């Protein structure tokens, strides 16, 4: 099979308007992935499926990942020479930068016809609140149908052109997206004999008020 870099080159030549980024993977098996832009995702998916050298006819795993906004503190050091002639001073300058959050979908593609893989493609939303639409790849691979519904349910990504986009696991009245990192689960820790960490904090809310205990 071609390497991902070769696929990247071919795709870039074929779809010059698309933005393609190679995402490296530092883990030992180095399953690197290709970040596509949402506008061209559908065409590229069809190409990957039908290209005779690739024939990625089997989309194995579709999953969402939540990347919340992260505050990154960068430390820059600069050496300043003292104009008075003293020893040069090192000045540390800390800059806070807000890395924007996003929701991400990861597709693991294999070829059943040629028995190779995986080719991993990713799609990212604009942010985590209002720009959360991505094109659905269910028309390309049927196997995405339930998995994209699950991602809609648990992460809240809206897939356009999905044939039946409803909540998969939670009930329809449910409003939250529980797999997001900032999800706060409902509090039902009235009886918690072995609480730890977060649960302890929640269980404490159910302990009798200190005044009542003192009486």
């Amino acid at each position: 099979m071609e390497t991902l870099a070769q696929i990247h080159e071919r795709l870039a030549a074929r779809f010059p308007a698309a933005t393609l980024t190679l995402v490296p993977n530092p883990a030992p098996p180095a399953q690197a992935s290709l970040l596509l832009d949402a506008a061209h995702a559908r065409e590229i998916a069809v190409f990957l499926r039908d290209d005779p050298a690739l024939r990625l006819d089997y989309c194995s795993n579709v999953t969402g990942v939540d990347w919340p906004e992260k505050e990154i503190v960068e430390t820059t050091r600069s050496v300043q020479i003292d104009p008075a002639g003293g020893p040069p001073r090192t000045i540390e300058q800390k800059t806070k930068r807000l890395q924007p959050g996003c929701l991400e979908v990861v597709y693991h593609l294999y070829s059943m016809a040629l028995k190779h893989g995986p080719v991993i493609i990713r799609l990212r939303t604009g942010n985590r609140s209002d720009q959360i639409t991505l094109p659905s790849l269910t028309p390309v691979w049927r196997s995405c149908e339930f998995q994209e519904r699950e991602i809609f349910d648990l992460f809240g990504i809206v897939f356009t052109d999905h044939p039946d986009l409803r909540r998969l696991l939670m009930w329809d009245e449910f409003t939250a997206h529980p797999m997001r990192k900032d999800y706060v689960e409902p509090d039902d820790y009235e009886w918690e004999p072995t609480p730890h960490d977060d649960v302890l904090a929640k269980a404490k809310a159910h302990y009798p008020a200190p005044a009542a205990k003192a009486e």
Partner: protein
Amino acid sequence: MTMSDATRPAINAQTSAPLSGPTDADRDELRRHGILLTSIQELANWGRSNSVWPLQFGLACCAIEMIAASMARFDIARFGSEVFRPSPRQADLLIVSGTVTKKMAPQVIRLWNQMPEPKYCIAMGACAISGGPFKQGYNVLKGIDRFIPVDVYIPGCPPRPEALLNGLIELQKNIRGRHIAGPAPVEADSPTAPGEYPVPAFGERDLEPTSNPKLWQPPVIVRPDKP
């Protein structure tokens, strides 16, 4: 002999005087002399306890062990309980065998409401008792006894089929100690009560309500802060 325990607040406490009668020792003594003493109550309890028909109702992992208990090796038929009924109308015993999720809880309670009296409930496995290992999950009900009264708890994950049989024996003992007349062990089981347990609705974040406070009043447990 009384049925009140910590999980069941004694609602009719003032009227719950047990019926007096011959004790088990008296009966053994009489039996030794060739006299078989029985009463309607004892006969009814004998019949009820030896033909507990469970509802064919599996939820999760423990359901497989429940099926295993009904198969040749453990053979629940030896206790008169092999008749797994697919319809709640014909069943006496609800074995809650597995994790009750919040999405499933209203259905379980509805099934329990559809079962005719007298009915019994076994919470089989850690998940049914308290949510078990999955209690940290957002969709897991932390114990079915928040909504329906449970007669026997069988801890284990999953309990061996023998443990289920052991639980069934416990339940049979429990049934033999019940009174036909007198107050019901749970208010909703009494003849004057509407006979239905409230079914929670699906809320935006959780079930509404999250428990039935008439049934479920956990003791207060306060842990000191760790040094």
